[in-house]
């Protein structure tokens, strides 16, 4: 299998959002705020020639230099990054799958803590995002708005008084803001109540979807709650609406965790410890297995059943055990079977080292 060139662009082993800290971190992994922006002088990416995309990259880089985002950030032209490393960036939530697989001049710029990330020449010219660990919408929003305001003084954005910030897709027009909260809902999943949460969220104009895997069953029981509408409301109203719906979901998940703990404790403990035993002993693990077992271990930590493993360790394994991260670690391309063996090894060593 092909050897890979080194890829050492991450100042830290993993981003801040995996710390397992911040408000409500027993359920909320991270909060992400994203802004979609286009620059007036160029057609949207769909209609931009290679030449125009190149011009736009240059314009954005100049603007970023002007606001001091030069030495302090990592800047990668994605057409110069091998596919497996573009997938590493996807696994770290720094770029979208669409940007990874797109063609032509495009780039990502991200901060050292991997909180700020700017995608250039995605579907929109700019996708600015800020990720924080835990449930921390206000802080993520304020931090991102600062970058946006600095940039708008250098780059004339495409806007209209009627439609606000103009975006390639009509679902993002207006504020261009998407607030997404990544939640871990193992108890609601075990008790088969996730569908109810989906319906309730939809009624309140919010979307909830599984983060990994297809359909309603999400690997690892991770879900993303986000605002649906971006037009006709102010940014603050949208932020507040997400802040308002989250406590209801958190309360529901906690109630289910409480019920599991009081009514079905032997069953729950059995499942959690079997999952932990598998992770500690398996010699081959595929991604789905790893994620569903880790999900139970994470629940065990939150319930106080497991005391010697930190949330941060579990969060980290979730990312480091993804296929492209494993190949980066190994420095070469690997077959699925090789990856499963490598993944099992990683999980065993991390769990042993991550005891606190």
């Amino acid at each position, binding site marked *: 299998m092909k050897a890979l060139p080194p890829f050492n662009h991450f100042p830290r082993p993993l981003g801040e959002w995996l710390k397992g800290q911040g408000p409500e971190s027993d359920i909320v992994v991270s909060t992400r705020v994203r802004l979609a922006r286009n620059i007036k002088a160029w057609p*949207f990416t769909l209609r931009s020639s290679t030449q125009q995309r190149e011009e736009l990259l240059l314009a954005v880089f100049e603007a970023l230099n002007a606001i001091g985002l030069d030495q302090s950030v990592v800047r990668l032209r994605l057409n110069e990054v091998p596919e497996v490393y573009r997938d590493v960036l996807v696994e770290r939530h720094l770029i979208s799958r669409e940007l990874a697989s797109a063609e032509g001049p495009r780039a990502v710029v991200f901060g050292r803590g991997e909180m700020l990330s700017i995608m250039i020449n995605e579907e929109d010219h700019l996708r600015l995002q800020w990720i924080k660990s835990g449930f921390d919408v206000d802080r993520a929003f304020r931090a991102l708005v600062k970058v946006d305001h600095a940039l708008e003084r250098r780059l004339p*954005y495409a806007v209209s008084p009627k439609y606000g910030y103009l975006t*390639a897709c009509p679902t993002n027009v207006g504020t261009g803001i998407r607030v997404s909260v990544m939640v871990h809902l193992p108890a609601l999943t075990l008790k088969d109540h996730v569908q109810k949460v989906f319906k309730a969220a939809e009624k309140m104009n919010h979307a909830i979807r599984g983060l990994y895997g297809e359909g309603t069953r999400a690997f690892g029981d991770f879900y993303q709650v986000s605002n649906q509408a971006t037009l006709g409301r102010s*940014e603050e109203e949208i932020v507040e609406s997400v802040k308002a719906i989250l406590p209801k979901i958190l309360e529901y998940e906690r109630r289910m965790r409480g019920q599991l703990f009081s009514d079905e404790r032997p069953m729950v403990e059995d499942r959690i410890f079997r999952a932990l035993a598998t992770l500690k002993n398996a010699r081959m693990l595929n991604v789905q297995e790893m994620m569903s077992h880790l999900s139970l271990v994470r629940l065990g930590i939150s319930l106080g059943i497991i005391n010697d493993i930190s949330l941060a360790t579990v969060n980290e394994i979730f990312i480091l055990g993804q296929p492209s991260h494993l190949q980066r670690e190994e420095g070469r391309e690997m077959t699925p079977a090789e990856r499963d063996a490598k993944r099992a090894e990683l999980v065993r060593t991390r769990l042993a080292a991550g005891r606190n």
Partner: protein
Amino acid sequence: MICDCCKKNEAKVQVCDVEQNAVVQQFAICNDCMTLLKRLLFDPATPLIPTSEAVKQVQDMLSSKDKSLTPVEAPGKLTVSDRQPEAVPACPSCGMTLAEFKQRGRFGCAHDYEVFASHIDPLLERIHDVTPPQHRGRLPQGEADESVTGKARELAALRNQLDDAVLAEDYERAAKLRDRIAALAGEVKSKPGKARREGP
């Protein structure tokens, strides 16, 4: 003067190629052929080509008798009933049509919102659950700061002016802007990347 493209109608517009500030070739074009020519000259989705090349392509189109490309018939011949009732003009800036937008679900440029306003308002009402669709968030405060200079900034300004010129059908100005962008962008492209030291 007779049009250089169709060799039939009376020419109304002069277009030319400029090289190092000197006119190298000049063409007289009629209004019908100009609509075809501007598609080739100012289509943002295709690479820039010299005017002479574009004129040649229009001549080829006309001689190939491709019906979809022939200039519009004389106004008297087209009656209202001949038109499709739902026909919406394509975006003059990026060429996006309503049909293509419906198929892709994405716009081609910022102008599309105005071009298709009557069609997208009901869509926006549905997506965002708001009637009428009216932005209520913030907008950029004031104009972008002009104190920053640089090639990219100049390119952006020229692209904006080119877009304005095409929309205003000021082709003479558009042609000049196009040449300036080509010259400036040429520099951008040929600029070598940072030298990277490889291992021994």
